[in-house]
């Protein structure tokens, strides 16, 4: 099973999804983010999905779940770098990712998080 690395930069956790996500690694990522948030007390999570080309409802739900988990640690989640095709798919699936913010790129995502703190 491939693990997605979580990098802490300042007060932000940076998660870049570079591998094709399997159900197991998604669950593992949720746990890892929760562990990391508890350990570091970070205030923001940036999830970069530039490399993700295929999404299904499960991955959409995973993103919302990470958002909800982060909120419990008083951290905001920003999803960055979504591809147009992915956005269209999620909309067609009726998922609007409630509870997470979105930004065009990592730069803008950081701006959102910094503007908040």
């Amino acid at each position, binding site marked *: 099973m491939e693990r997605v690395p979580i990098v802490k930069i300042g007060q932000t956790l940076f998660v870049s999804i570079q591998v094709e996500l399997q159900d197991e690694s998604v669950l593992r990522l949720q746990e890892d983010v929760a562990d990391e948030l508890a350990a570091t007390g970070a205030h923001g999570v940036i999830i970069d999905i530039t490399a993700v080309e295929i999404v299904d409802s499960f991955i959409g739900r995973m993103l919302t779940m990470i958002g909800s988990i982060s909120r419990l640690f008083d951290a905001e989640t920003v999803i960055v770098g*979504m591809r*147009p095709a992915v*956005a269209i798919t*999620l*909309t067609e699936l009726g998922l609007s990712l409630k509870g997470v913010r*979105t930004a*065009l790129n990592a730069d803008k*995502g950081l701006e959102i998080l910094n503007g908040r703190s």
Partner: protein
Amino acid sequence: MEADGTQVRMADYLRDHHDKVLGRWSELVVIGLRGRTSLEEVQHELGELYSLIVRVLSAADDHAAVELRAALDEMSRSRALNGLTPSETALAVFSLKEAVYELVADAAEMVPEFLAFSRTVDDLGLRTVEAYTAAREQIISDQATTMLELSTPVVRLWDGIIAVPLVGTLDSARTQLVMERLLEALVATGAGHAVIDITGVPTVDTEVAQHLLKTVSAARLLGAECTVSGIRPQVAQTIVSLGIEFGDIATKATMADALALALEHAGLKVVPALWSGYRS
């Protein structure tokens, strides 16, 4: 094509009377086209068809039938492109029957040959109509594609603000294209705001509204905010009477209002210049 005695005899007959039949055939076609093409042109075009038909009837080789079909298709296609009607196209083939009939009318012994020949010509005529229709449909679908591409520009209004002026009726195919273009432009330019202007959209029904909502929520997933502008009074009335909810999507009467809102969101402010050279 299965060759039998009547067909071979007809082929011989056509070969013997080549100049007479071809000349009369060309005349008839030129009359039918009401002088839009010269006799020489028609004669040249029909001369090829004529020799192919003779080859098919005499069953000399297998390629003749294929070549004849290709020649007929090509002729129908060029006539469709030049704006001729289907009957004018089919007439080109059917006139051959008339030309031959005028010759064989006196020869009673040629009747069975002529009947079989007549059936063959009917098939060829139908073939031209079919090819004509196919060519027309191709033209129409090409035009539709061109119009679709022409009608969905994405323009940059300001740094980080883009606009999509929509003109014409919105259907599923078009909204899909608009959505893709808009999202791609957002990613390419890094714009955080998009204005969708529907001034040129004649009617907004539940389906169109649904498409707009989808586009806006897809843009939101990318991290961009959308404003819908250009809602005309009648459109506003329709939207309200249909009970369409735009939710928390900002709607504005004009694109200027939408631009002002986008500038405000981007933290920009337009102020009058202290001195402007344009002012007298």
